[in-house]
């Protein structure tokens, strides 16, 4: 199973500490709020205390008159609204005539000190006319005289409706041995990252701004900011400093970023702004509150025969990533098993609550819970082992799903088999004493969205590499390292290809003035896409050095194979580079007859070598500078129907969890004792980072499973703190066993796929299925609070009593 050793890789496949870990541990890493600009103004935001109101007037005179106040902004200062999706630009930087959620920014103050800014915020007088809000997605579905977004021509609060149908549903259910159906409900949850949002803006004497911001998407922020501020992009430079966690919560452009930049431009001063934890909860953008009914048909021989779901997702006041979420609630059910007949209907509603958006496992997590619980129920009804059954029906390699996703590598079977062995599944499942249980669930996820948010033909990621004359390597990438370790991954790519130690590779990332475009850290795309781009840039650099070495050694440079037309090449998933076309494709083979190691570039055939520095010096003679670029773009693929692009990815990751729990039938407490994870991330480039992602996903999944919930009371956020919004503490983390699970993805860089998000979804239903094994109840509502466990146990007891009474009666007759 340990493939890393066999391939002869020197850097990849080895547990590698993140290159910035030392700086972080030593407290030297600068996060956005740590940066010290010269004499900045402090910005404070006035937020609406009302979830639904008209703004009759905003009086800023007293605030402006306060000594030390340099500026006040209101909704009137911004013409353009924005949104991360081009089709959903509905959010203003500051509310204009209406407020749509409690905590919505209404005005902002820039002042010489934070204290003055605070005082000025209190002096702003807003005259609100309260209006009836809509706080419930079912009610939001009804016709209304007061839609949230009449300005967009919307007559109701239905933001997005997606209905897709594949195959023959009726026939699918007819083929089933059992049909199970249930309604599931999910609370909205927050990302709860460590670092609250922060932004600082520096302005130069020519009116250009540098925006330091805690963002996952510098490129999208760049574009949105240019549009909102109505200045060209070249006047804006976005830099993402060290970042303390995102999980999707920093993947939109935000109002506070627009506000900060506006102040800097208007006042000609540097400015700074940071969120409190409460601000983070008010801004939210977390996982949608979801109400879904799912029906699953299962045949012992064929597996799933039909799957339908009807879903309401509560979007809150604005669009954010919501349209994508709407699709993902359906399409991410197309794996890890074949679903031949499939229909999903998802409605996203506008309500007067903080908006929901992307969060780790985006849109796929809640329906995954439902489908894995239903599959477990089907197995129980058919008297089948749920783990063995899953093993049988996991998608095979190189298959097309019903909605035409191209599934390439699948390595889950081995992983799940090994997990069953390690947990002693056969001896435990169904055989543990009451209160102890074991459960299984699987999942799958995209390795980057194949299509960009802003439609264009540019590469999804471009990486530039330069070589210094003393041999140092620098990798430039727009990708955002948000703590997941993408900088380290980019360096690993270059170090492996160029045969250099990690110390010799520097990474400059996420600076829109210096680094080439990468679309951002979302949809688990960075390893696959930026990784490929970095690898390709390094291969090009390698080629320059080989050429120089040949010149020095008086050898003929190697010739490289060329693929056919790119389209054909992509469909084949081939690996051959095409240097003449300036196009390398994904994961090209770079065997060139040379070995780069120990500071030498050596020809294998001629057993002759030059030193690394000699080759560089020679190569520099040609250009005076050693610089290459590499790109990645997803192959053409997918169906021709409307919405076929949603969930389309060049590759998919697969995950299985076996979870062991103890349920206290008197208190209803669920204790997760152990989680065994098999995650097929292709070839793990950095097992240390992969394991970290697995442990983190388990912790985050545990939170959603057992305790996390955004609580609203008539639109007011009732728990905007880490005291009352319960994320698990270290005490609740179970023992984790990670089963090495490999596949070789033909297009992922060195065979790698995503490892950041897909892991999360199946851990939650695995807990629920283990609870069923422990005490015989099916929980259909998250979080699975102790009181819900007890209610379910009481219901079970009642049904059983009813059954016995009925039997007794029948016996009497």
């Amino acid at each position: 199973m340990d493939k890393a050793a066999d391939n002869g890789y020197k850097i990849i496949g080895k547990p590698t500490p993140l290159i910035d870990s030392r700086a972080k541990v030593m407290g030297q890493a600068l996060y956005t709020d740590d940066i010290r600009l010269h004499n900045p103004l402090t910005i404070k935001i006035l937020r609406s205390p009302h979830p639904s109101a008209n703004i009759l007037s905003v009086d800023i005179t007293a605030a402006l008159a306060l000594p030390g106040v340099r500026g006040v902004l209101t909704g009137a200062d911004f013409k353009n609204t924005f949104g991360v999706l081009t089709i959903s630009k509905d959010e203003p930087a500051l509310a204009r005539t209406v407020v749509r959620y409690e905590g919505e920014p209404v005005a902002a103050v820039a002042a010489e000190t934070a204290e003055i800014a605070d005082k000025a915020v209190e002096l702003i007088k807003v005259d609100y006319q309260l209006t009836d809000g809509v706080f419930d997605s079912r009610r939001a579905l009804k016709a209304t005289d007061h839609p949230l977004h009449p300005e967009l021509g919307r007559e109701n609060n239905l933001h997005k409706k997606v209905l897709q149908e594949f195959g023959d549903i009726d026939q699918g259910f007819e083929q089933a041995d059992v049909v199970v159906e249930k309604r599931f409900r999910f609370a909205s949850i927050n990302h709860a990252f460590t670092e609250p949002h922060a932004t600082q803006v520096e302005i130069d004497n020519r009116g250009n701004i540098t925006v330091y911001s805690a963002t996952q998407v510098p490129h999208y922020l760049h574009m949105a900011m240019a549009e909102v501020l109505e200045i060209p992009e070249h006047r804006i430079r976005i830099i993402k400093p060290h970042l303390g966690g995102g999980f999707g919560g920093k993947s939109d452009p935000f109002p506070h970023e627009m506000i900060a930049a506006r102040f800097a431009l208007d006042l000609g001063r540097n400015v700074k702004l940071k969120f409190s934890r409460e601000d983070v909860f008010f801004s939210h953008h977390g996982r949608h509150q979801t109400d879904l009914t799912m029906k699953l048909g299962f045949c012992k021989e064929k597996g799933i025969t039909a799957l339908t779901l009807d879903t309401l997702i509560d979007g809150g006041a604005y669009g954010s990533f919501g349209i994508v979420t709407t699709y993902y609630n359906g399409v991410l059910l197309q794996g890890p098993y074949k679903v031949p007949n499939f229909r999903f209907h998802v409605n996203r509603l506008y309500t007067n609550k903080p908006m929901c958006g992307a969060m780790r496992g985006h849109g796929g997590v809640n329906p995954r819970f439902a489908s894995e619980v239903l599959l477990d129920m089907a197995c129980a009804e058919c008297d089948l082992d749920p783990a063995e059954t899953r093993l049988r029906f996991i998608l095979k390699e190189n298959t097309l799903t019903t909605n035409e996703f191209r599934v390439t590598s699948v390595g889950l079977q081995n992983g799940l088999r090994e997990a069953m062995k390690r947990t002693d599944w056969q001896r435990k499942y169904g055989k543990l004493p009451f209160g102890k249980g074991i459960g299984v669930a699987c999942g799958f996820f995209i390795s980057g969205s194949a299509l960009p948010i802003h439609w264009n033909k540019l590469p999804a990621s471009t990486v530039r590499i330069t070589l210094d004359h003393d041999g140092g390597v620098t990798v430039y990438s727009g990708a955002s390292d948000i703590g997941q370790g993408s900088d380290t991954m980019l360096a690993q790519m270059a170090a492996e290809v160029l045969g250099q130690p990690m110390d010799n590779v520097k990474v400059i990332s996420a600076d829109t003035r210096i680094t080439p475009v990468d679309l951002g850290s979302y949809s688990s795309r960075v390893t696959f896409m930026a990784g490929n781009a970095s690898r390709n840039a390094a291969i090009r650099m390698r080629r320059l050095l080989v050429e120089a070495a040949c010149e020095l050694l008086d050898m003929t440079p190697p010739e490289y194979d060329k693929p056919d037309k790119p389209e054909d090449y992509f469909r084949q998933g081939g690996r051959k580079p095409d240097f003449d076309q300036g196009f390398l494709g994904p994961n090209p083979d770079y065997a060139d007859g040379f070995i780069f190691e120990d500071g030498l570039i050596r020809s294998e055939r001629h057993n002759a070598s030059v030193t690394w520095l000699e080759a560089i010096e020679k190569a520099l003679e040609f250009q005076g500078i050693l610089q290459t670029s590499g790109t990645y773009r997803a192959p053409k693929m997918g169906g021709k129907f409307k919405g076929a692009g949603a969930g389309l990815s060049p590759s998919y990751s697969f995950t299985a969890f076996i979870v062991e729990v103890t349920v206290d039938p008197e208190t209803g407490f669920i204790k997760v004792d152990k989680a065994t994870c098999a995650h097929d991330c292709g070839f793990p480039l950095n097992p240390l980072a992969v394991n970290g992602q697995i442990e983190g996903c388990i912790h985050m999944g545990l939170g959603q499973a057992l305790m996390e919930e955004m609580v609203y009371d008539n639109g007011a956020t009732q728990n905007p703190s880490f005291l009352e919004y319960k994320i698990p503490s270290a005490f609740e983390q179970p023992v984790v066993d990670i089963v090495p699970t490999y596949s070789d993805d033909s297009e992922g860089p060195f065979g790698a796929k995503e490892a950041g998000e897909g892991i999360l979804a199946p851990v939650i239903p695995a807990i629920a299925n283990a609870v069923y094994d422990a005490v015989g109840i099916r929980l259909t509502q998250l979080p699975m609070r102790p009181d819900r466990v007890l209610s379910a146990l009481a219901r079970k007891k009642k049904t059983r009593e009813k059954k016995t009474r009925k039997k007794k009666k029948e016996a009497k007759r």
Partner: protein
Amino acid sequence: MSSLPENFDYVRPATLDQLSALVTEYQQKDRSFAFSAGGTDLIPKLKTRLLNLDSLISLNGLTELTGIEKHAHHITIGALSTLSEVADSDLISQYLPTLGDAARKVASPQIRNRATIGGNIMVDNRCSYINQSPINRESHSPCFKAGGDVCHLVKSAKRGDEILCQARFVSDTAPVLLLLDAKITITGAAGPRKIKLAELYLNDGIDNKNINSGEVITAIDIEIPDKCRMDYQKLAIRNALDFPSLGVAVRLSDNGVSVALTGLNPRPGVFQADTADYDSFDNMIAAICAEAMGFAVTYQQDFFPRGYRKDMIAVFIRRGVDRIMKESKT
């Protein structure tokens, strides 16, 4: 709002005499003030503007309020002893181990290193509508505890009602101290006085402490029981950080069983059943469970729904009894 308000004085008297002089002065000048020991409950209230002060009087200079000592059959705990000191004290673990357990169950190590036992028994009552930011409090109208005219939990409540505010009592150590029949020494303008801890608590969520403005608790005095057959259990979704959704202290003696509850109502509840009144031990336990459950008029202001918390009272009492019995067997 996450910064402290600017305009308040901070004073740190070094002796009780200095403290007394300060209090007299402030009272004469009509200056509002509050005492701060660990500050873990107070500072968040200042930051969220729940509390507005002219002066913050730190008690941390009063070294005479520190120390845990044994005098004959008594343990005296200085009110400024931190919860960590109580939890780690050899005297406590030898003579009053359950008190140490309860102290260990409060919040997190960082907070226990600051928070004091005096502060824990004086901790202000909490409610999900009052312990909020100004924005949230403005979103709802101000409640009785905030000086307003409405209770968001009990919508029918109106001025003149016996209980206006249902903000709940959340001390983890108080139930154990109550069952130990602890006495507290209070010092103020009229000099020191000693009362039973049970007399400190009133059934009023707005202010449930029967103590005069300017008085401080200096020490807690506990008579060492012959056998400390006690148990304390806390209901919270996490094993750290949280205030008790319910706390149940149980004590068994030759005469019967006693129970103290926290986390439910504005005041802690204390119940007792005498062996003599029941024909069996089991009946006695059943009776005290029923009585204790009746005490819970808990409202939905917590992670757990009210019905569940009520049900857990009996579960926790029985478990506490079982644990004590098991321990005395070994």
